[in-house]
């Protein structure tokens, strides 16, 4: 879609401004940062950002009554949604940061603390190569091994069929999850310069 109505879901935690900056640069004018039910309902595409601890983000989302709405729009109406970092992790079944917490359960999986070989610092911070499993419209014009910026201590562990792309950091880390209209990226495309902008473009072009 050339000029979609995009809603960046604002549930109080998330670098919404950074995401908006990136989308503005790409020329998307129909952009809203909001938790308004009507606007979410009418959006052509949704972005779920996230910066924070899993539980805090999940509670914030639920406190605003967004879970039933998003479940309907995303699961039933199949609206395309892109989750970023904790936004992606929220899509899992459960998260294990500071206890066991319920995620949105859109993509089966568990968010666990990174357990790495000795010599590997946690969090996983910095630019790392992302290898995609197969050519999907999401990776249009993005080369294999393109660098993206990661910054996380917890990782989405899921079945291979949902892991659209991975990254190596002592172990294989799920970089992108995808299931039909639902996409989640562990890295920050809004902070990955050209590669990140290309990913946003490919995502919106593919809907």
């Amino acid at each position, binding site marked *: 879609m050339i000029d979609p109505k995009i809603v960046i879901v604002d549930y109080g*935690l998330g*670098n919404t401004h950074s995401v908006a900056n990136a989308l503005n640069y790409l020329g998307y004018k129909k952009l809203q940062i909001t938790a308004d039910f009507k606007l979410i309902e009418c959006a052509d595409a949704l972005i779920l950002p996230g910066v924070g601890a899993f539980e805090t983000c999940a509670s914030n989302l639920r406190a605003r009554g967004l879970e039933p709405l998003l479940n309907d729009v995303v699961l039933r109406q199949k609206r395309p949604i892109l989750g970023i970092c904790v936004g992606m992790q929220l899509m899992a079944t459960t998260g294990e940061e500071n206890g066991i917490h319920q995620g949105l359960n859109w993509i089966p999986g568990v968010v666990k603390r990174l357990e790495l070989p000795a010599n590997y*610092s946690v969090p*996983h911070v910095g630019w790392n190569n992302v290898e995609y499993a197969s050519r999907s419209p999401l990776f249009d014009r993005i080369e294999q091994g393109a660098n993206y*910026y990661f910054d996380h201590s917890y990782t989405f562990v899921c079945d291979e069929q949902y892991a659209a792309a991975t990254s190596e950091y002592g172990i294989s880390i799920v970089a992108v999850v995808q299931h039909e209209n639902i996409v989640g990226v562990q890295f920050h495309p809004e902070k990955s310069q050209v590669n*990140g902008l290309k990913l946003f473009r490919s995502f919106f072009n593919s809907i």
Partner: protein
Amino acid sequence: MLKKRVAATVVVRDGIVVQSIGFKKYLPVGKPAITIEFLNSWGIDEIILLDITATAKCISPDFDMIRQASKKCYVPLTVGGGITKISDIEELMHCGADKVSFNQQAIHRSGIIAEAAHLFGDQCVVASIDAVKTAEGYRVYDYLTAKVLATQPAEFAKQLTDMGAGEILINSVDRDGTYTGYDIELIKMVCNEVNVPVIASGGAKNAMDFKQVFQQTNASAATAANFFHFSEHSVISTKAELKKEMDIRLETHANYAEACFNENFRLNKKTDQVLGEMLFVKIEKDII
């Protein structure tokens, strides 16, 4: 493979980017928004913006300045200076910051580090330590009171990471603004003590200093301020030099692969013939 990061520190005093020399002398460089825009176009890996006025005057961070500055920032932005409460962090996140850095609070009210890590995640919290070398060894330095504390930087770093800091920025006050290279011994000590990524700071003059700190220590990132403001082509040529020997992200169109540098790592002029040919090379702008 995770790349080593080449970061830039942007020191802001009264809303202006300044050159800092030993924490004593400050000379103006320009506007934060412009500095950040340029650093972005040069392919910097990360930017650390430190507002030294906010802390000194006990005022909140300059949210408007950060909002403006972050508009053209498509790489991670760490903001430090004047952050004393959780609401400051929330507001900063809404202004375009990705991580926050604590220096004074780390010394005097470190509880906020644990609180911030709990709410925002440790990956969002950077603890920034200034260190000086004394006769008894390295000690933490409190820049606001200009006092040398009894604490050792490596121990302090460990305490702060135990409280939840996800990254440590270790800055050598002695080397700050001197162009005499990173304090390798200091950085090694801190890297050995903690299991989080360490950002080396203070003293970088050219690509060789970056090479040295990455080859001789386990630092995950190295940052420079004055060097990037005052040496031409410094960001990209540093990365080009580093890329010869290690994994570095170099994705700008200019990659200096065939460039020649003099013994001080300043770019040598290409021959007139090559320059003549370059006049007719069309560089396509990347349309995303």
